[in-house]
């Protein structure tokens, strides 16, 4: 069986979250490049998962799914999109069996035979009783992923849960750990593993009847919560980088209207595929805090250094390894060329010079504070009572421009003249948007 891919679900959720209910079923399906039937099937499946994971969700079928996933700041403690990572499909009998095994081990260490007994007494009648081989392979899997351990001592071996990070801590320490995991998952990248661990610690606190101490005291302002969808590919990319392996994938530029091409042989899909098949030596992964987006930077033999938005990657597969020397050389090249990238631009370096005006009448200089906080490697080269000069060398002007513009009249770009003129032209156009008194349209 082919490895289950979640490309469709990821693209689906991303579009759902970014466009928050803007599209009808038909429009949505068309933009994703899937049939309405597939759309309905996907949404049914995602709904089922979301409702199982977040039991507090209302079961009202009429409710729009987009509404369900709508971001609400004061209720944002549980990351809504995490349920995507619970989408791995599993036979009902297998999920039952694994749950029974884990529940049995929760209380005390057991041997494989004792676990077979547990299964025979607890599995619902409609499922076949597992044989020893099945149980042994389950135990092997659970051991491999680090959930259980084989205990020391002779045969028959006993297996126990690896709950040390909970068991070794006092109740008070467990709260500290829960908080730390919450804070780090929310403020650092990557986050998904942290959110999953957070769910587990929450369960541990519940078991100790410490529900009240969870209380979700933390809020995180202006974080891009949809960033976790892109983490789906992250570990595949990191693994390939570590092993110096090429990657192949079907790439959809985010500027294309269609986001996904079915891997099925449905000719309708194939005809409409606009993605490009790429083969790349991956070198670095970049997280852009300005938009909350991920990039893959790599080298292709045909086009040299290439940048891909993580959201455009589908059907990612690892390929052959390259010699260490080649990887090192390309990585150095990349580091050299991205040294002055505001984000990922590898264009020609430009020296940008801008005057920032200190706020008048305010007692704190929040303009300077913000420049120091966000101005990356740029320097303040001159200062007086009213203003200061900021200089930075960046690759191209495109990526820094929005940041400079966001300061409004507190920033005047001096050089390059081309950038200065572009900003003047843009501000003229922006001004024209608001020239007239607001016109209210009738709906």
């Amino acid at each position, binding site marked *: 069986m082919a490895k289950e891919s979640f490309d469709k679900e990821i693209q689906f959720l991303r579009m759902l979250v970014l466009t928050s209910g803007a599209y009808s079923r038909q429009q949505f399906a068309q933009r994703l490049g899937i049939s309405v039937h597939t759309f309905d099937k996907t949404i049914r499946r995602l709904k089922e998962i979301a409702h*199982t994971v977040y039991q507090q969700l209302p079961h009202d079928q009429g409710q729009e799914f987009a509404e369900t996933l709508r971001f609400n700041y004061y209720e944002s403690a549980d990351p809504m999109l995490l349920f995507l990572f619970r989408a791995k499909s599993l036979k009902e009998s297998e999920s039952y069996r694994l749950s029974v095994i884990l529940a049995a081990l929760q209380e005390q260490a057991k041997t494989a035979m004792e676990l077979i007994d547990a299964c025979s007494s607890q599995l619902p009648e409609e499922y076949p009783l597992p044989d020893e081989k099945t149980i042994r392979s389950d135990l092997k899997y659970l051991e491999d992923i680090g959930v259980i351990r084989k205990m020391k001592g002779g045969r028959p071996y006993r297996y126990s849960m690896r709950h040390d990070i909970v068991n070794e801590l006092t109740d008070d320490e467990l709260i500290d750990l829960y908080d730390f995991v919450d804070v780090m998952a929310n*403020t650092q990248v990557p986050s998904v593993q942290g959110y999953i661990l957070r769910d587990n610690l929450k369960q541990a606190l519940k078991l100790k009847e410490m529900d009240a101490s969870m209380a979700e005291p933390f809020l995180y302002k202006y974080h891009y919560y949809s960033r976790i969808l892109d983490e789906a590919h992250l570990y595949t990319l990191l693994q390939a980088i570590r092993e110096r392996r090429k990657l192949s994938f079907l790439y959809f530029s985010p500027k294309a209207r269609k986001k996904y091409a079915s891997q099925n042989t449905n000719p309708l899909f194939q005809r409409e595929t606009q993605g490009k098949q790429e083969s790349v030596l991956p070198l670095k992964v970049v997280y852009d805090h300005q938009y909350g987006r991920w990039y893959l930077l790599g080298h292709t033999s045909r086009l040299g250094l290439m940048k891909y938005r993580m959201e455009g990657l589908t059907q990612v597969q690892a390929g052959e390894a390259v010699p260490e020397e080649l990887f090192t050389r390309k990585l150095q090249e990349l580091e050299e060329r991205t040294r002055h990238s505001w984000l990922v631009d590898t264009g020609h370096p430009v020296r940008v010079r801008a005057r920032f005006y200190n706020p008048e009448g305010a007692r704190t200089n929040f303009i300077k504070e913000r420049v120091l906080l966000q101005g990356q490697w740029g320097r303040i080269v001159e200062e007086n009572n009213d203003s200061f000069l900021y200089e930075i060398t960046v690759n191209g002007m495109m990526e820094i421009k929005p940041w400079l513009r966001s300061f409004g009249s507190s920033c005047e770009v001096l050089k390059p003249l081309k950038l200065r003129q572009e900003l003047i032209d843009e501000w003229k156009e922006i001004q024209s948007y*608001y020239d007239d008194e607001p016109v209210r349209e009738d709906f």
Partner: protein
Amino acid sequence: MTMNLFEKIFNYQIMSRLEESGAFAVTSHERSWLRAMLDHPAAADAFTPETMAKLAAVLQAEADIDIAEHVMEKASSVERQVYHPLLRPLRRIIAERQGSRISYRLKHGGMQHEQSGFPYKLEYSMVKREWYLLWYHPRRHMFMSTRLRNIADVQQEEISPARAEELLSKIAAIIDSRKEHAVIEVIRIYNRELSRIMYAFSCFEKEVEYFDDTDTYRIRLTFMGDECEYILSKIRFLGKRVRIIEGEKLQRRMRESAAKTLARYGIGEEHDQLNGEEQRVIFDSSS
């Protein structure tokens, strides 16, 4: 073993069955992640040295996931604070629904001593990379947002569960009543950049409308009054790609912003009229 975020064990049916039977299962992936996070300087403020030692011992055998080596973060604010020592005592006061007596430094100098209040959330700003305590000042009927680094002292102050309940529902009602709305339209020729524009607004509460006949997108934002400035900076950030079509206050501010900026460049009539109002608020907060 390769990290896989779609591991069988994370399956939703297993998760819910484990929950029902009061069990849980932590994988080595999660422990590796935790191990990597413990290397962050923030960990020192999050745990006592004894807890740190225990965690280090438990996690010592886990694989190192060398994320920092392969992941580069760009355009981030300087990370000056991820944890603060006051998070530990304050989160406990909040969890126990207790009141507090706070002494804190004012932004412009001076101190406020032993103010009685009701803390309800701790808020981290990804933009300023700082922690704030959100609390209600019952005597002044005010919502306060105080930087943790300005708090000199906090003491717990006993209040009854009934009073806490009353305050919490009052706070929720007031927050709800203070929500504002604005509608932003994507200028049609920039629909190609829709993804970027939607990402930029994805940190706000929003709904999007699409008008098929004109191929136009409208984003309806919901926000608190004190978030106006951040929203405006986002709109200036996106430049001519978007236009505010509903929300008079924001529209007026954009009109002013455009005129003043052009004046900076020597264009328009307002050369000498820069009164600083627009600037003051760009990066201000209610703290």
